[in-house]
């Protein structure tokens, strides 16, 4: 996978993950073009399209579009299910995920994605294992949050 974009029906970008080195300018251009292309498509159309020399796989969940760019040799259907599994992970973590969860907890959305996909490839496809990793991290955070009360002025550096 070359990149993944999440954007709203209004075309607002909610998450972007790039697995190939591109300049910021290129990223913006690609995003603009793709958001436009995908939003222009009608509901019953197929989820795949050719775009430049890549294949775009996208799916809409409520108000959010999930859109992946894969290479010629990559499998469209399994990519569609990568999207679905990511949505399941978000859903499980946030409990009925909605767009607002991703806006306000964008860093969490990135952390979950990194546990699931790394370098554009599936790292761990088991829902249980991904969530376990995230929850462990949260536990670490919570125990540390409690520490904070007493260490408000703690100088780390």
């Amino acid at each position, binding site marked *: 996978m070359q990149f993944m974009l999440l954007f709203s029906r209004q075309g607002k970008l909610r998450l972007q993950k790039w697995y190939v080195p591109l300049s910021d300018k290129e990223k913006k251009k690609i995003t603009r073009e793709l958001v436009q292309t995908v939003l222009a498509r009608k509901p019953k159309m*197929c989820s795949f399209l050719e775009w430049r020399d890549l294949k775009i796989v996208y799916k809409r969940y409520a108000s959010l579009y999930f859109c992946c760019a894969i290479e010629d040799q990559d499998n469209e259907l399994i990519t569609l299910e990568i999207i*679905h599994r990511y949505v399941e992970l978000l859903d499980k973590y946030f409990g009925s995920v909605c767009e607002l969860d991703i806006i306000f907890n964008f860093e969490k959305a990135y952390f979950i994605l990194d546990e699931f996909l790394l*370098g554009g490839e599936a790292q761990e496809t088991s829902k249980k294992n991904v969530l376990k990793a995230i929850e462990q991290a949260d536990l*670490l955070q919570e125990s540390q949050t409690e520490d904070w009360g007493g260490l408000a002025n703690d100088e780390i550096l």
Partner: protein
Amino acid sequence: MPAVSKGDGMRGLAVFISDIRNCKSKEAEIKRINKELANIRSKFKGDKALDGYSKKKYVCKLLFIFLLGHDIDFGHMEAVNLLSSNKYTEKQIGYLFISVLVNSNSELIRLINNAIKNDLSSRNPTFMCLALHCIANVGSREMAEAFAGEIPRILVAGDTMDSVKQSAALCLLRLYKTSPDLVLMGEWTSRVVHLLNDQHMGVVTAAISLITCLSQKNPDEFKTCVSLAVSRLSRIVSSASTDLQDYTYYFVPAPWLSCKLLRLLQCYPPPEDGAVKGRLVECLETILNKAQEPPKSKKVQHSNAKNAILFEAIALIIHYDSEPNLLVRACNQLGQFLQHRETNLRYLALESMCTLASSEFSHEAVKTHIETVINALKTERDVSVRQRAADLLYAMCDRSNAKQIVAEMLSYLETADYSIREEMVLKVAILAEKYAVDYSWYVDTILNLIRIAGDYVSEEVWYRVIQIVINRDDVQGYAAKTVFEALQAPACHENMVKVGGYILGEFGNLIAGDPRSSPLVQFNLLHSKFHLCSVPTRALLLSAYIKFINLFPETKSTIQEVLRCDSQIRNSDVELQQRAVEYLKLSSIASTDVLATVLEEMPPFPERESSILAKLKKKKGPGAVSAGELEEGKREGGEVNGAERPGDNAAIAASNASTPSPSADLLGLRSAAPVSAAPVSAGSLLVDVFSEAGPAASTAGVNDDGFLSCSSALSSAPPSVVSEDPAPPLPESDELLNKFVCKNNGVLFENQLLQIGIKSEYRQNLGKLPNTLRNIVLLIFIALLNEILLNVQLKPVDPLVEGGAQVQQVINIECLSDFSDAPLLNIKFRYGGALQNLSLKLPVTINKFFQPTEMSSHDFFQRWKQLSQPQQEAQKIFKANHPMDTEVLKAKLLGLGTALLDNVDPNPENFVCAGVIQTKAQQIGCLLRLEPNAQAQMYRLTLRSSKDTVAKRLCELLSEQF
């Protein structure tokens, strides 16, 4: 605020995000952001050291601002500081910031790498994973340099946690993709391959991506993965849906891993080990069988996951292309999908069938679905699906169904989406040409294309139809009739006018017998379109008009009137004006014979790769073109050249001869003698370019004893002049001659007084002369280099040539019989009072009359054997005079005029050529073999010919060339 408060909510961040969301306008948003940036900047710069939490919060705000699309140019240092925090939450935000906003600041990179190094060696798996994620996300060269050595160790170490192994595998993959030179697997290779056997499915899933990528680059080193992959796949495929617990996805066991395993196997040929292969075939059969079983769930996720594996299995079957049974089953399965209610499946089935169509085993099976595919083209609501259907029709097309497919594509074009029209046009044009049984169908198809989608018919397409019509005399009359009819339409596309103009200009005579398409009617029809056309089209029409004057003398006055009117002769466009002036002049001063020569029918175009095919390739990239065509492309040498531009050619051919330089008159164009042949003795011929036309006008028939008859369009030497005092040829003239054996253009001779350039066109005549004859047009440019005056010896031409002027002389030469000696060119002029007398050999050698002959290896050897008498062979072994560069050799052999035959000689280093020399007396077949020996820097050249003198002469000529 959402209800979620997992982990630590950063209140300040949430408030900021809410503020941004509440902004009513873009301006308000920018204002709020600038305020926040100023605040953060002052906090970072402030005297009071920030605690970790605040630092994390501000870095997170910066990240949010960046993700909104604003530029962030500070905060990197604070993020790097967070990396070395021992609090997970701070470290995590630090890494996220670095991953998203990496900066190439070298000082920073050093600090980041340092922090990563610490985390990697921390033995804390969560920290190690964070560090590995960061490397994988950034993937920069600096990181590869720092960590490419360390990560393989982590990946294969026995005590590494599974989750860390997973991250390490994909981290390494990312580094390998960016800096393959830095990732050296070497000693780790076999241990990495054995990760395919790992107990943990997650480890296998991650590792297989790495192994696949490495296998693509180093298939031999990783080939042990094949049997491991097959057994893993076999275990998954045969497992019950519950066996794999959490790796089962909607009742499908390990779909991601299955797809990746099938993908990995596509890096290799079918397994050689019979047992492994048997097991794999069994897997593939099971996958195909499962597709027929009733679904275990109605959820789309179930069928998607199942079908993802199925498509990957079909891709592998197509990749092997060796199991007819599986290929046909795959095709049938895809056939079912063609009518599936899921658009996605129809799309993928069409796509996958496209590749099946190119396999000989399944081509026929694919063809049985033609009606469904045509229906898809007509009824699919999604343009991307229709595009796939069009691609598939193109792929499944062959001689048996070409007419149907082309007809369907044409009718689809009428309503096709604009986005795919140009490609459709190209495809129709290619199919029509490739599978044309009769060329009238081809012409009809292309003209229909122009009628239906004229705007999308690129130049290549209409150039091509003209090339084909010119090259095939059986279709010319039909083409003329059809364009004439097409032009009757009240509104026709400009491309139609171009084709019409060109074809009527060349072949209008073929339909002129019918009073309904008499010359004047044709002209008036074309001219009625003239004023609506763009400049290039009008230029083409003007060329058509001058051709009309030649074809139909009765149209001369009408056309001259058109050329003479102000809108032409004073046209503000230089090209149009020049053509009008030149054509008008040409039509009024040139005799009919000169006109006939200058405006002769265009010679056939050299056969080469179809320019439109090349265009399609360029448009779609190589992936889109079937294997056969690609090979074709390779054989032809890729870059195209079918981009022969007939439109221009006409102009060049016409304008070369009508260049309005005073020298044209100077050379006596007005009193030009018609074809006249100089008698030839002893095989050499003197052409005195500047001699008086005089007695040459006597239509001295071809001298039967001569080998060559040389006819100049302007004048040629009467015998008396020749015998007068021709200088002996220059001593270097043989050497000069040798330079032109393999090329046609260049400077023949140069001294301080003049320069003689040669531009030759060797063409086979189609029209007036029998096919066995060739015309050679030599254009001699004589440029006087210094400020001198040239006194041409004989009048009636203008006796003075200004210094720096150019004089053109056109000589037509036809080969009557084979010859060894080149004709002599004798130039006499007076300079500074002294008579200059210069004799050169005209670079006309026997090979100039070659017509290339393509033949198969079998035919070649059969003919080679037939020419086995000793005198039919000439052989020479000689030392290389030039570097032995294959491409240069090829170019030279092609320049020789023969066809260069691939795959004939079993030794690929050798070159084999074949050609036929066309003379009036006979056709002389020649076969050539050149064997370079790079070590000895020697060549062995062997020629066999039906005529011994020819073999000998060619051998002599060629041995000087390499």
